[in-house]
């Protein structure tokens, strides 16, 4: 059959030539290659002390944002749950009472908001769907692991951010255009990485 990529090699089982059969030239060549690696720059990152920066478009664990006055943004419209391809999100809406204006921005809010982390595929569609800029996948926690399945259904206690943090939003998702621009800034990530391996 004709090769399409032109990279296929015919396997041959020809006898070794004399130089090949004494092994030594090949072994010395190999030794030279390995000794170059011996003195090469090491790529190890000494993890607990030095952490790699997350990519600008890193999608981590969800954060339910608060606004500038510390009020929850989520209005329990359910678009995130609707958009979720893994059906990981569920919520219960409630009406804002008098005197709760400093807690919830909208008149309707999510009394219960749960994401099943065992189902979530971290696709970020909930973030895209949210009309209130309330949910972002910016928590820089790696794939959460727990001893119990029940603990992996994250409720509001784990999801709602403690206080308003404008940086958190900027670093993470944001509108899609903004994120595309971020890929250009990946060069800064690269230089940080080199700084780590030098130290």
């Amino acid at each position, binding site marked *: 059959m004709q090769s399409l990529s032109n990279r296929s090699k015919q396997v041959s089982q020809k006898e070794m030539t004399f130089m090949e059969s*004494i092994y030594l030239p090949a*072994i010395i060549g*190999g*030794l030279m*290659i390995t000794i170059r690696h*011996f003195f*090469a720059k*090491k790529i190890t990152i000494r993890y607990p002390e030095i952490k790699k920066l997350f990519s600008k478009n890193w999608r981590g664990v969800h954060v339910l944002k608060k606004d500038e006055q510390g009020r929850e943004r989520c209005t329990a419209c359910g678009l995130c749950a609707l958009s979720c391809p893994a059906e990981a999100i569920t919520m219960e809406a409630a009406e804002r009472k008098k005197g709760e204006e400093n807690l919830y921005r909208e008149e309707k809010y999510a009394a219960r908001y749960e994401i099943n982390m065992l189902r979530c595929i971290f696709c970020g569609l909930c973030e895209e769907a949210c009309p209130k800029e309330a949910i972002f996948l910016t928590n820089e926690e790696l794939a959460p692991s727990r001893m119990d399945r029940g603990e992996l259904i994250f409720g509001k206690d784990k999801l709602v951010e403690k206080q308003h943090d404008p940086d958190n939003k900027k670093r993470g998702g944001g509108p899609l255009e903004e994120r595309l621009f971020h890929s250009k800034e990946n060069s800064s990530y690269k230089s940080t990485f080199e700084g780590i391996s030098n130290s």
Partner: protein
Amino acid sequence: MDIYFILGKLILIVIIFAISLLTAMYSTYGERKIAGFFQDRLGPDRAGPWGILQPLADGGKLFFKEEILPVNANMALFIAGPSLSMLTACMSTAIIPWGTYLDIFGTKFVLQVADVNIGLLYIFGVVSLGVYGVMIGGWASNNKYSLLGAVRAASQNISYELAMGLSVIALIMLNGSLSLAEISRNQGESLFGLSGLNWNIFYQPLGFLIFIVCAFAECNRTPFDLPECETELVGGYHTEYSSMKLGFYLFAEYINMFVSSAFMAVLYFGGYNYPGINFVEANLGHNAAVIIGLAALFAKILFFIFFFMWVRWTVPRFRYDQLMKLGWQILIPLAIFNILLTGVGIMLFDN
């Protein structure tokens, strides 16, 4: 034989024993570190600064592991295996000349435990005992994989011992002595106008090549680590071993590596001699020259240990038929040819 002589020898034995164990201990650390460096990693660096306490952690771990004695194993032999391995590995350091003698307050303190006049034969005797440790351990485990590993080890060691012995015969012809002290002394003469550079490697390059290949095979190191070939034999002869018995097997391998590095340094690379030894002796005194010689010998040994590891992380394992072909069909004829060549050389140049 006065009391000081015995006391001096005892101190020397303890020191050499401690040093060879320490070197073997840190070879395990060095192996992991060097393996890491060859693979663009850092290697262990968590226990202590740069990870220098790693051997202690490893040793402690091995001691506290559960010791499993297989029900159907032959108990006495099962225990004798690693003990014998360890014993033979430690025995051969006795005849390495670490230097001529130290002059301490007018008393000569010879830096060699025993100057056996058949030193080289002693090495071969002890080294060939080493295979019993592996053989007995593998057989006593009552496990097919262990037995296969042990059979491989035995046939490999026997095959390569022949070539090793033949390659050393040429060296004996050249030096006219089996004593390692004598061989070291001969290499202290001058060559190219530099004292202490009359190394055997310049007369026996082919012999050295054969010797080093055989040393790799004798130590069961890659590319000749077929006795413990994980891909085919689980773990080879130490499959059934656990805890410190396994530790002894692994440790014996590193001591063997230290010892064969020492022999390569002594036999071919001048032992304790270094270029300019006479100059140092004339200017700085005898003791200084001897101590620098000791350091030189250690530098050579460490280089060879590094070389062992360097090769290990470069060359893949031989196939068993390739191993046997290399041993019997290439190295042994080559070693005999080397003897012939040396004989002709001695006839032409010495008379």
